[in-house]
């Protein structure tokens, strides 16, 4: 056996009760007594909370008093506490990698009910670890340098706040935004609950700061297409899509817009969710950042018309020469130490609930459209008029559209009840209409939110507990404009018909359309609903399973603006801590080729996704660059002559585990 340690193996075994979490199902005493009978075991104990200070001290004391050189702890998942116990063993003077953890909580006590079976399983898993640890060898943690600079993907309020926080701390930030302007969904809102302050008033100054900040490089209308490398050293490729305007030369004067051959705006305006019109050359909205125009090749005559266009825009631009119809997509590369993902959400498509008539009846709107309609900078200058030009006298707001429903999205989007109340207030304020809110449960947790609910309900908004089941044109309305909302008022237990002029659908939030693509590019995980998965919901809420990649905002799950900003700050702090520390510790689970054993067959070389394995010509053997190896072990499993070894996962260690879980003792 290679490098076998000469001293005899002395194992200490500890099984944790975890209160009653484990001890309630697993007979911890029996496990400890059994383990005590196994070879090499010197100490075998059970204790209430192994992860507590006294628990850790227990181990340390045993190490000192009984000359233990291997420690096995049976408790929760190693993904939770392996580090805790490694540190504890290291403090008592033995190498932290002479430790092995047995997962009898998540993988046993919590998932089984039969005590006998759970105890048998715990014994088998413990035995595997006891057989494994004699093969453990002392290993060293490696430090890898972290590059400065942070990439922030997504320029909504989350990305803006994270970028500014980092930049103010002196970090170089690259902010990538897929749209023409930063600002995200918040830029489209009118007022924000619960304080009813104007969204633009609080957001646009921050957008301007981004533009002006010397530490921030903003790449708008761009997408991250590739991320290579690892924590501290991410090589990022960003695709800059052509907007046919030279960014540095455009002054945002909009004289080209004025000069366009289309005298009047003609095309649906994306920023106003199709409720307004724009020209082919346009500024998304007055406070857009960057404050430069863009040309839409889908509508501009230069691209769409066989005979082209006289291009009066170019003339109007004159010497500034900012218009470039030949602009091509461009790739830029940058290396950063950390990445913050703040790619946001998309709204639920109300057409997926066909019986609410969205897209069928013109007087049915989704909530984002109404945000624009009540917004002073919106397509109607804040005048709430419907597509038929009329002011509604009665409005029905349906909560939970597409939410809490197995047919669509199962989750509660958290913000809809509150924004529905806000819209009810704004609609009443602007039109004095009667407003009916139909809700299932009124969910208004959080600071000042219940007060907000009280305030709005006191303003005379009708709150009906019951979800609308049918929307159809009122047969009594000769113009066919009015709609009937049929719903059970569940507090009355009666099905009622509510004729209204306008219907507002409070749609939920869902993962952005490109979430899966972003997830793959950054090697993250998703929950089953498609939002990015945090490493731990409580203990690592902005981290991901991929070190150095952090989450902020609604890409991680629906949340309101205060929570989004708080989370963005947390993500910025995590990234800042990583980048300023300057190094990361790497788990020593890398593989190495045993040179005298290797035949140089080269089978392993193409298997490494990180090109860590090379064939050394002068020796005619393979070699692994440990700095590049990430420790997956694929080459080890594939080496036909068994000449590659993975630290922490040596063949012998795993064979011992197999033996242990299957032994009949």
């Amino acid at each position: 056996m290679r490098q076998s340690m000469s001293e005899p193996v002395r194992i200490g075994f500890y099984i944790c009760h975890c209160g009653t979490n484990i001890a309630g199902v697993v007979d911890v005493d029996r496990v400890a007594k059994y383990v005590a009978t196994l070879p090499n075991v010197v100490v075998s104990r059970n204790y209430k909370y192994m992860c507590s200070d006294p628990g850790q001290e227990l181990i340390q004391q045993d190490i000192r008093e009984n000359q233990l050189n291997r420690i096995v702890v049976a408790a929760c998942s190693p993904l939770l506490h392996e580090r805790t116990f490694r540190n504890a063993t290291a403090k008592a003077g033995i190498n932290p990698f002479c430790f092995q953890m047995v997962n009898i909580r998540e993988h046993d006590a919590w998932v089984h009910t039969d005590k006998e079976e759970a105890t048998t399983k715990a014994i088998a898993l413990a035995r595997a670890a006891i057989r494994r640890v004699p093969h453990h060898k002392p290993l060293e943690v490696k430090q890898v340098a972290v590059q400065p600079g942070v990439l922030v993907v997504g320029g909504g309020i989350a990305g803006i706040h994270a970028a500014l926080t980092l930049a103010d701390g002196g970090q170089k930030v690259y902010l990538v935004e897929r749209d023409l302007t930063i600002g995200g969904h918040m830029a489209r809102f009118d007022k924000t609950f619960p304080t009813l302050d104007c969204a633009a008033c609080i957001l646009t100054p921050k957008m301007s700061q981004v533009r002006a900040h010397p530490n921030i490089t903003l790449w708008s209308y761009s997408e991250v297409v590739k991320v290579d490398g690892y924590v501290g050293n991410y090589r990022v490729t960003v695709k800059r899509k052509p907007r046919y305007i030279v960014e540095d030369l455009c002054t945002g004067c909009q004289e080209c817009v004025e000069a366009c051959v289309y005298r009047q705006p003609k095309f649906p305006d994306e920023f106003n969710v199709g409720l307004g019109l724009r020209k082919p050359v346009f500024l998304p909205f007055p406070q857009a950042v960057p404050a430069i125009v863009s040309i839409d090749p889908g509508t501009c005559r230069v691209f769409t018309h066989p005979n082209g266009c006289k291009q009066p825009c170019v003339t109007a631009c004159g010497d500034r020469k900012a218009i470039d119809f030949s602009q091509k997509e461009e790739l830029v590369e940058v290396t950063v130490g950390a990445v913050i993902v703040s790619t946001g959400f998309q709204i639920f498509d109300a057409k997926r609930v066909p019986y609410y008539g969205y897209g069928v009846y013109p007087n049915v709107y989704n909530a984002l459209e109404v945000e624009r309609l009540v917004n002073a900078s919106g397509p109607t200058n804040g005048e709430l008029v419907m597509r038929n030009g009329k002011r509604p006298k009665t409005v029905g707001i349906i909560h939970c559209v597409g939410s809490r429903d197995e047919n669509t999205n199962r989750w509660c989007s958290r913000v809809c009840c509150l924004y529905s109340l806000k819209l009810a207030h704004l609609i009443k304020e602007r039109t004095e209409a009667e407003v009916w809110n139909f809700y299932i449960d009124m969910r208004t947790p959080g600071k000042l939110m219940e007060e907000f609910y009280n305030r709005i309900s006191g303003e005379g908004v009708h709150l009906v507990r019951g979800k609308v089941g049918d929307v159809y044109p009122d047969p009594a309305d000769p113009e066919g404009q009015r709609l009937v909302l049929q719903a059970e008022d569940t507090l009355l237990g009666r099905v009622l018909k509510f004729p209204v002029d306008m219907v507002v659908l409070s749609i939920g939030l869902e993962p952005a359309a490109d979430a899966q693509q972003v997830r793959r590019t950054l090697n993250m995980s998703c929950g089953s609903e498609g939002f990015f998965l945090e490493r731990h919901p409580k203990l690592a809420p902005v981290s991901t399973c991929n070190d150095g990649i952090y989450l902020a905002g609604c890409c991680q799950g629906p949340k309101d603006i205060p929570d989004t900003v708080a989370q963005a700050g947390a993500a910025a702090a995590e990234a800042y801590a990583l980048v300023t520390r300057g190094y990361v510790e790497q788990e020593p689970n890398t593989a190495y080729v045993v040179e005298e054993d290797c035949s140089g067959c080269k089978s392993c070389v193409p298997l490494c996704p990180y090109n860590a394995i090379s064939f050394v010509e002068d020796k005619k053997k393979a070699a692994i660059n440990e700095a590049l190896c990430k420790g997956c072990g694929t080459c080890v499993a594939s080496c036909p002559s068994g000449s590659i070894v993975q630290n922490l996962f040596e063949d012998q260690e795993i064979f011992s585990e197999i033996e242990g879980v299957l032994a009949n003792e």
Partner: protein
Amino acid sequence: MAIVERNVTCPVDTTLETLLATPEGQQIMSCLQCGTCAGPCPYGEHMDYPPRQVINMLRRGLLDEVIASGSLLRCVACYACMAKCPRGIRLTDVLLPLVKEQTLANLPEMPGELQKSLENMLRYGNPMGESGRKRAAWTATAGVPVPLIAQAGRPVDVLWFVECYASFYPRGQAVSRAAAKLFHALGVDFAILGNDEKCAGECGRLTWESGLFESLAEYNVKVLAKYRFHRIVTGDSHALNAFHRRYPLAEHGWQAEHTVQLLARRLDELKPRLTKRLEAVVAYHDNCCLGRGLDCYDEPRALLTAIPGVKLVEMTHNRMNSLCCGGGGGGMWLDTYYKSKDMERLSERRVKEAVAAGASVLAVACPYELSRFEDAVKTLGHDKQMVVRDVVELLAESLEG
């Protein structure tokens, strides 16, 4: 949005007492009392206890009040509540029929029409009380041969389950003749059970009389198992619904589909032969069992638009939001009862929508609807401007020669 789970898994002897212990019952416990079920219920406003409340009363052990109220006699088993339920609760499949069965059992006197049809089904195997020996009589005037499977002496591709209305009721027979003509035109290898067939029992199982259903289903399964065929095809959406939900199809390796599904699968062959122009504005009525029950919306529309001269229009309530004709769940035999309670006939509500949509033809794909809608068209005085036709009839009419 579709009712994906079709097969009902709780045991056949499930009662209101044992329901909560079944998988379907566990879903009932997850009801969030949103009331989405009551909104689209066609008679919801006439119920003292709409579906949401039935659920809560069940959970609180107060169902006796619901049963005594008679609310569930107004349920027409249209799946409108179940299709929209955000928790996927099997209201129409499981809960409501059990409550309705108890409601009927506790009535001092059963509504006469319903009583009669029940007896007929038990005695004659059809609700009209016709002699079982006349079941295949319509084939004599079919114009094309309609083989009996017992006489075929070989496996056939399609076992055509004709069902009661399409066998005995004159308008239904016309639809059967049209279907036979289309099958011949397409060279479908089919046969019928003839006089051996009995009512599939859908209304029983799924709405109010489980014992009767068991005996009819058991009988039919036994008869079907004697023969070899690839698929069961029926024009009766209610029968099809019963097959999918409660007949042991998988056990016997049987498939079941609607006539319009079969025809739509072979539309490429059929289309070139639809040569006669019909010049009609057609509104298609999604019947509950085929639409919400079995998620089949596009096939009948594809067939209709294949007919030259047909312009398809949609009524306000269409597809999964369709309105029931009022015939399901025993409603077929409760018209007098509903009238006595001063409730609008649902068929009339529906015909008004078809007229409003500007239709000259109201197309259907369920044998109950022909009689119900034709009646409503006359009552409302629209018989000059609109007719009711089965999709199959329209196709046969357009068929060359």
